[in-house]
């Protein structure tokens, strides 16, 4: 049995179902992300695991024990909130020591453990500060320390980076990932940010309106989406209807299904591809070029369809807006969906 088991969980608010018979299991030391748009039920599930929200039906098992009806304070679960939720009247030290003091741990031991965790969070010099004097990133690190010092069985993170400005966010994400490894934690992150989920997770469960649409590793979900919903949520896919794609390939594509192409799966060259080269080749004109970090995203007009194509900067300097270019897409990189569901899945494995 897995470390955390969620079994057939249902929950409604005011007759509106937000969790529709959800089951999932999480292994020890795994970093799991519940990903989805707001209102899809992911936060409700997280709060149910913590015991802060009651369930209509279903069970939650942690470490082999049924905790469905246990009081939150007896679950030994740590939770990090978007709004930090530190105790404003206590210093950083007292915030972190709060839980240990409630357990009547001797003061000397409390002091040691608190200082240990503050040190690993790089917060020792802030021990005597109050939350109001800290930056958003520091506050969230204090919140992490306050949970970690209790050695929780599982750490729940409810959109913890939302309120933190873009600059601090990446470094805090790294801190969380490091802490997860260093403390051998089992962590569940709730987020609506696809890139964040990609960066952080071992496993992603993508939610859609109260059900799990697809589960898997980040690369699995990115390269092998099982439905249009997953494809549109995970990347910057080009979505092209069957007729247009048939026109682009001069009639060589005839399956009659909506086609989905990743922008970096399309190859771009100045010279024509050799006759008889695999996949579909076609000609287009560059309409726009937007540099984005180490890639440049080109808009390429082919038969009236504008495709996004991502190219690494070094190669991209060869192309100018207005130029005619040659494109190629290999057949096994074309995903096609019928009525929103994946129809023909061309198997590819990640990491092999």
């Amino acid at each position: 049995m897995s470390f955390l088991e969620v079994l057939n969980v249902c929950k409604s608010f005011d007759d509106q179902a937000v969790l529709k018979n959800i089951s999932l299991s999480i292994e020890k030391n795994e970093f799991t992300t519940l990903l989805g748009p707001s209102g899809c039920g992911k936060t409700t599930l997280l709060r149910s695991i913590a015991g802060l929200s009651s369930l209509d039906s279903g069970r939650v098992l942690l470490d082999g024990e049924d905790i469905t009806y246990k009081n939150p304070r007896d679950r030994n679960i740590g939770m990090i909130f978007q709004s930090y939720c530190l105790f404003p009247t206590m210093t950083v030290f007292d915030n972190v020591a709060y839980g240990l003091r409630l357990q009547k741990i001797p003061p000397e031991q409390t002091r040691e453990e608190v200082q240990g965790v503050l040190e690993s969070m790089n917060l020792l010099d802030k021990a005597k500060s109050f939350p109001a004097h800290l930056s958003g990133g520091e506050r969230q690190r204090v919140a992490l320390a306050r949970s970690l010092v209790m050695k929780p069985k599982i750490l729940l993170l409810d959109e913890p980076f939302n309120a933190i400005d873009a600059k601090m966010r990446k470094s805090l994400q790294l801190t969380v990932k490091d802490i997860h490894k260093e403390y051998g934690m089992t962590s569940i992150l709730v987020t609506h940010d696809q890139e964040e989920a990609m960066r952080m997770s071992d496993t992603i469960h993508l939610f859609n309106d109260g059900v799990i649409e697809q589960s898997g590793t980040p690369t699995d979900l990115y390269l092998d989406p099982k439905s249009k919903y997953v494809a549109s949520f995970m990347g910057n896919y080009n979505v092209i209807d069957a007729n247009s794609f048939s026109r682009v390939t001069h009639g060589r594509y005839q399956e009659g299904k909506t086609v989905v192409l990743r922008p970096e799966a399309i190859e771009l060259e100045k010279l024509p591809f050799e006759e008889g080269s695999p996949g579909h080749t076609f000609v287009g004109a560059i309409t726009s070029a937007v540099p984005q970090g180490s890639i440049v995203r080109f808009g390429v007009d082919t038969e009236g369809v504008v495709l996004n194509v991502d190219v690494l900067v070094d190669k991209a300097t060869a192309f100018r807006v207005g130029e005619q270019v040659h494109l190629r897409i290999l057949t096994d990189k074309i995903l096609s969906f019928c009525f929103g569901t994946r129809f023909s899945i061309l198997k590819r494995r990640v990491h092999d």
Partner: protein
Amino acid sequence: MNRNDKQSKRTHLPLIIRTVLLLAGILLWEYFATNGRYNPIFTSHPSGIIKDSIVFVTSGQLYKHASITVLEVFGALFLGSLAGIALATFFGYFSFAGEIFTPIISGISCIPQLALAPIYVLWFGLGLQSKIFLAGLMVFFNVFSATYGAIKSMDKGILESANLLGASEFVTLRTVVLPSCMPWILSGLRGGVSAALIGAIIGEYIGSRGGLGWMITYSTSYFNISRVMSCILVLLVLGLALNKALDLLERRVLVWRTVTTLGTERLKK
């Protein structure tokens, strides 16, 4: 060094002008009153007020009357804020009772308590009780509404965090809720201080046997305006002292809230 000079010059200039204007005003008042340009019987004049203040203090009258008023104010503050905090906490935690009774309380607080002063004097007599009741009720309404509002608007996540860390409801109340509500309780108390002072004075106007309010009406009826002014000076000092005491309390209790604003100006370039 240079910059600090500039800075202090800039902020001190209005202060200097203000002081000069105020002093000039007092001197003109004294000059016109003592030179018979107008009859100071209705306004008294600075030197007259100073002379009377000395008599007021040395005769022991100040001590006698001020102590009555101070006793009323402190009694009202103590009882009113105690009741306010206790009831607000009770209704904050038993929210169904809160939903039933708090609208009644805020309805009653719509009646201007000071207008009820004659009735309270009738009910509780000319002694301390009537003033403490009147002023205490005013303090109660201030502190109750501030505290209740603060408890109701607590961030739920903070309570949930305490719960997840192992705290029971009562422990959370004692260690988290009440401390975080202190700013609002204190601001309720600050409103209560003004209310208690005015409640005591008006109570004494309506009917009493002593106190600064009694002294003011008594002096007015004998056209002793210098004494009235002395009493008002004492009231002002009393009010300022109580507010100062609250400032000190606030600085002690709310260390966690003081945000260093130093240098934020400079960052906003």
